[in-house]
């Protein structure tokens, strides 16, 4: 598990109500897919673990490096790949939600700068109870692209 590159920072502990803490929600395997320089859209993936006894609902995400972040799910319907927007992401008590290639992902619109593998992207996740969690995701090349860019 690539927990090492995910840094969870609690923001404004003053505003935190007890049920959401770094222990209640842990995130691993979090990354932003490096995209070709002309791409106006990118995807972010992560696995969210709800370690608490209450359901957790993620209602929005934002990043200063992107104009907008939406939750999407890639659906294969009779061989046609479609993206469905999801207003919220819920992580039931005691379970995990996977955001992964060819499935659920965060769709990142209009990067404000070209991002390369190794760059760090801050995200702010807002939950239904108005708690916020700050996370930093690292940009990575997708599997198989790791040794590709030797010029």
């Amino acid at each position, binding site marked *: 598990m690539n927990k090492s590159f995910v840094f969870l920072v609690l923001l404004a502990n003053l505003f935190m109500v007890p049920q959401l803490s770094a222990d209640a929600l842990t995130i691993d395997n979090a990354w932003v897919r490096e995209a070709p320089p002309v791409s106006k859209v990118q995807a972010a993936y992560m696995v969210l673990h709800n370690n608490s006894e209450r359901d957790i609902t993620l209602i929005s995400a934002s990043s200063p490096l992107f104009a907008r972040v939406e939750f999407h799910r890639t659906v294969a319907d009779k061989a*046609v790949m479609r993206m469905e927007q999801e207003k919220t992401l819920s992580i039931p008590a005691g379970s995990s939600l996977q955001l992964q290639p060819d499935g659920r992902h965060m769709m990142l619109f209009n990067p404000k700068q070209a991002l390369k593998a190794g760059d760090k992207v801050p995200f702010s996740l807002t939950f239904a109870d108005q708690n916020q969690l700050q996370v930093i995701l690292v940009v990575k090349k997708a599997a198989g692209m790791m040794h590709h860019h030797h010029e």
Partner: protein
Amino acid sequence: MTNPSRFSRHSGSLLIAAIAILGAILGQWLYHAGQDKVPDLNTLSATVFSTPRTISAFNLLDHHGNAFTEASLPGQWSFVFFGYTNCPDVCPSTLTMLNLMLKAVSNQTTNTPPPRVMMISVDPARDTVEKLSTYMPYFNKSFIGLTAVHQDDIDAITKQFGIAYFLNRKSPADEEYSVEHSGAVLLINPQGRLHALFSAPHDPLRMANEFATIRGVHE
């Protein structure tokens, strides 16, 4: 030692040698018989058309701005995928998969020319030649991006390939629309005919292995 015993020991060694040689010959024969047997294409995950389909006229532009038509197809095997560059998940995944597949094919055979890999944009309004010229080499410098001047030019090829797609444009001003599109990868043979279809989900090694089988049967 007497002559007879020496003779019998000698003939014993001869017998063993003869059995060994016969065994080796039989083994080689069985091996080659197995090799020569035509693989059963029905066991593949790919759909191989019993009669490769003729591809009728189309008129596209490659990512260097050169014309690319049905006459550009013969001469080598081509993998074709339909996608668009404003696609955050499926298209980069598929192009990454095709890059791995191409590497696996190159590792398997060095004496046959590598197949071409092409992405035909189903979103030519946004996917200009210039945009594709930056997008495609990111995945592999040999990949070819294809677009067209008019959407009708794309339909001329999607219709004959049976590829469904839909532009999810919410309004004429919507520039961030997503596109629903087939995840299939098509294989065109060196005669320029549609030969096989790989349905999603894809696995690069399986695709490389099945391509080797399909090519072996065809050539």
